């Protein structure tokens, strides 16, 4: 080995060490604030519930059992825990619909921004991030004010004579969909924009030139190139909306329970921490499966620049 390459190896080794040193604070935070609590949650899910909340230090698989199954009080037969499963199903449905809606609204928005000139783009991006400045709870209550029976929207429509009676919107599925879409839209727009910004839009012209219609260009050129952004945005929206808690509660009126509310219930009034913990881990498992799907999709046949 020559002296030069030896020096190079030594330099590389030092470089690696420096990198580790620099990332130590972040790794520590992740260890203390994320991995540690997660292990505690996992541990709790295998313990027995205490009578006033908390846990008894005694191994029990009851919590996990109760997530999926329930025992009939009278004849001791086992049946699937439909109450829980339907909540899981409803949450997944809501997360799925939210992802779809943010995609439907976010895609044209991101496309619009990405095709502006550089200065205008910055202004639009700035506007997209403005909602982040206000607390989620406050924004959600503000939305409640807009759509309630005597709210802004109904008053406006009545004044304009478009409707003769206020439309009931608050505490409906529509309200939840609207709120969720509103809250998570930026999380979809930003990754979509990041993908679109890298597209050389001259290839769109090339597509038109080669007899692709507007839809053909969208389907065969833009969507495949934006795919990494679509997947990233979908994951970013799907995961938090699966555990959404505030929006279904405030805008849906808590009429239909979501996973987030169910977990909160177990740690609060339900006083069943192990069940809450098991539900949390189950929620995480769903997220993990979604992520796995993402990783497999992203590594397979994505565009080279993505």
């Amino acid at each position, binding site marked *: 080995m020559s002296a030069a390459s030896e020096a190079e190896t030594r330099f590389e080794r030092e470089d690696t060490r420096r990198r580790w040193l620099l990332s130590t604070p972040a790794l520590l935070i992740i260890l203390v604030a994320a991995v540690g609590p997660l292990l505690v949650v996992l541990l709790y899910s295998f313990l027995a519930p205490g009578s006033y909340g908390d846990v008894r230090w005694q191994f029990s698989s009851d919590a996990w059992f109760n997530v999926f199954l329930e025992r009939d009080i009278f004849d001791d037969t086992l049946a699937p825990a439909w109450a829980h499963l339907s909540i899981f199903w409803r949450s997944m449905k809501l997360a799925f619909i939210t992802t779809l809606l943010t995609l439907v609204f976010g895609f044209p928005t991101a496309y619009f921004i990405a095709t502006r000139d550089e200065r205008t783009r910055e202004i639009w991006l700035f506007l997209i991030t403005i909602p982040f400045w206000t607390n989620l709870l406050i924004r959600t209550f503000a939305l409640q004010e807009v759509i309630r029976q005597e709210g802004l929207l109904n008053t406006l429509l009545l004044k304009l004579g478009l409707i003769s009676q206020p439309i009931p919107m608050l505490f409906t599925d529509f309200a939840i969909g609207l709120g969720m879409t509103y809250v998570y839209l930026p999380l979809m727009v930003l990754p979509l924009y990041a993908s679109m910004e890298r597209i050389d839009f001259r290839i769109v012209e090339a597509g*038109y*030139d080669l007899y692709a219609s507007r839809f053909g260009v969208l389907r065969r050129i833009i969507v495949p190139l934006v795919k990494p952004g679509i997947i990233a945005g979908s994951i970013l929206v799907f995961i938090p909306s699966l555990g959404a808690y505030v929006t279904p509660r405030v805008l849906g009126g808590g009429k239909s329970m979501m996973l987030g509310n169910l977990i909160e219930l177990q740690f609060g009034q339900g006083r069943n921490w192990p069940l809450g913990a098991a539900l949390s881990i189950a929620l995480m498992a769903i997220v993990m499966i979604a992520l796995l799907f993402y990783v497999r999709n992203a590594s397979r046949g994505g565009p080279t620049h993505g």
Partner: protein
Amino acid sequence: MPSAAGCDDNQRSRQKERDVFSGVIVPEKPDRNAIEVRGVSKRFGIGENAFKALDNVSVTIRENEFFTLLGPSGCGKTTLLRLIAGFDFPTEGQIMLHGQDIAPLPPFKRPVNTVFQSYALFPHMTVGQNIGFGLEMLGKPKAEVKARVDQMLRLVRMEALKDRRTSQISGGQQQRVALARALAPSPKVLLLDEPLSALDYKLRKEMQSELKRLQTETGITFIFVTHDQEEALTMSDRIAVMSAGKILQVGAPWEIYDRPADRFVADFIGETNFLPGTLGAIENGRTTVTLSSGAMLPATLAEGYVPNGPATIVVRPEHARAIREGGDLRGQVENIVYFGTDTHIHVRLDDRNLFTVRQQNSRSRDCGFVVGDAVGVAIAPDGAQVLKD
């Protein structure tokens, strides 16, 4: 694609044409018109700030022709190409393709394809998928698309790279893919927007002859945009010289070079000496010009051009020779620049005008002059001509 026989015929007739004129007269091609641009204007922006990219341009491009739009950047040549492609729409005027007005049609409804300056290849597709895209969009059956893609790959000599991604091939290869992709759907007209400008000198030379070969082999009308006058002169059947949104002259390369319509064309194409003078009597398209130094110079006039008073004479540097004694003009050698194949001698004439003489270099000898020598300039018969100003 026309039949092989048609291709041959065309080649032959064109060859004959070249033999006949050999730099004298171009017989009009009897061919049909491919593209007719009629009174086209294009304005960007509105009101006072509107920028007129094209100003009442009319030009006819014949079928099976290698036609070049030549001009400096910002002259409107790319705008004209984009109007023909359909990426922009004219503010005024018509664009006829085989007698049908295509100006209002979107690009995907025009049988015209483009080779982009940046190539604009689809980064998420392989070389083969790129080439097949147009045919696929036209709804051709799979087997036909595949056969055509293979044929195109052979045409541009890229068979081995069919399944490569476009990011894994060199610039020259990307250029070939862009060409094959645009040629695959057999367009009526192929538009090329400065396609060689990103290549280095050697590769550019190679692609120039490649393009010429493709054009004769496919028999497709090529409209080629460039700012490189050498490229235009070597490749084109006809050239349109553009400046500031107008077409100044349309003609065969030799016409553009030897009979420039005005000062801009003369200056833009090749190197030229401009000499101010006063015209004498005109007879048979010839006259004698009195230069400011008092020297008298025989000069030709463009057909049908009847000027009066002062005029500008143009002389190409290679139509003049530097000699020791005598000559049409006298002066002093100011500078000598060696170019390998030839040497440029800059002569400061007695009337203080600068005149460049280009002399072919002979083996192992310099040009025989040194800076400061008194020198005469002999101008070849018909070497001087009166410019329309």
